[in-house]
C-alpha cells in the first residue's frame, strides 16, 4: 500500500467515525432543528 493510500484509509476511517459519533450524539437532529427554522440574521434580514 502506498503512503497516499494509507493516508486515505486513515482519513476515511476518521471521517466515518466522526460521522457515526456525530449521529449518535444527536448532531443530525441539531442540524435539522436549525435548518427548518428561518434564521433571520443568517440570511441578512435582521
Amino acid at each position, binding site marked *: 500500500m502506498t503512503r497516499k493510500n494509507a493516508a486515505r484509509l486513515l482519513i476515511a476511517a476518521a471521517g466515518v467515525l466522526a*460521522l457515526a459519533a*456525530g449521529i449518535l450524539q444527536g*448532531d*443530525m*437532529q441539531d442540524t435539522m432543528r436549525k435548518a427548518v427554522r428561518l434564521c433571520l*440574521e443568517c*440570511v441578512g434580514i435582521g
Partner: protein
Amino acid sequence: MGDRPLKRRLIQLASALIYNANMAGFGKGELYRGATKGLCVPGLNCYSCPGAVAACPLGSLQNALSRLPRKAPLYVAGFLVLVGLTLGRVVCGFACPFGLIQELLHKIPTPKIRKSRWTRYLSWLKYGILAVFVVAIPVWYAWTEGYPLPAFCKYICPAGTLEGGWSLVAARPEYRGVVGGLFGWKSAVCIAVLVGCVFCYRAFCRFLCPLGAIYSLFARVALVAVRVDKRLCCECGLCVERCKMDVRRVGDRECIHCGECRAVCPKNAIYFGREKRICQPAEENGCSVSER
C-alpha cells in the same frame, strides 16, 4: 470532446434543482421542514432558502461550533472529511449552485480580468475567511457569550442573501418591515460579488469561499479528480494557460476539476477519475519537454 462542458452544465443544473427541490417554497416564502433537512448537501446552498430540502454544510458547521464546549461538531466534520476525500473540489466544479450562477454571470460579454500573480495572492483570502468567520468567531462567541453567531452566514455569505434573504423579502411582505442595516450590508456584499463575477471568473469561489477552502485541503488525496498522466504529458503548459482558476498545475488546491483543460491537451494526457491508468510508454508518445 465538445459535449463535456454541456454535460458539466447539466450536472450543475441538476444539483441546483435537487438541492432546491421545494419549488413551492419560493412562492410561499416558507422553508421546507421535511426529514432531509437534517442531511447536508456537499455544495454551498443556504438552508434558509425556501427551496432548500437539505442543510448547508458551512451553516451547519458554524452552528455546530456554536455548541462548543458541550458538543464537538462531529457530524458535520465527518461529512466534510468524507466529501473532501471522495470528491474534493469536484463539488465546486459540478455540484455547487452558487458556482453555476457565477459561471453564467461570467458569460455576459464584458472585458474580463485575467488571472495573475495578484489573483493568486487573493486566492489565499478564503483560508483567512474560513479561519476567522467560520471557525474563530463562532467558537469565541460560544465559549465566551454562550451565544451562537454564524459570522460567515451573517456578514458575508452572498448565497444566503441571494437564495434566502432576497427571495424571502420578495415573498413575505412582513419581512420588509424588519430589514435594516444588516440587510443593506449583506445586499451590498452580494451585489459586489455578483457584479465581480461578471468581470472575474468565479470571483467568490477563488477568493472568498470557505467551503472551497476546506475541500482544497484534500487536493492531494481526493479520489475523484482531473489528473495528468505524467508519461504522456509534454509539459507544454497549455492546460494551466487555458484554466481560468488560479492553478499552478492541474489538480492543485485551486483546481475545481471542471476538465476544460482536457480540450487543449495536445497529448490527451489529462483524464478524469481515479489514479492509475494504463498508458503508453513515454518513448512511444513522441513528446518531450522541448515541445514546450
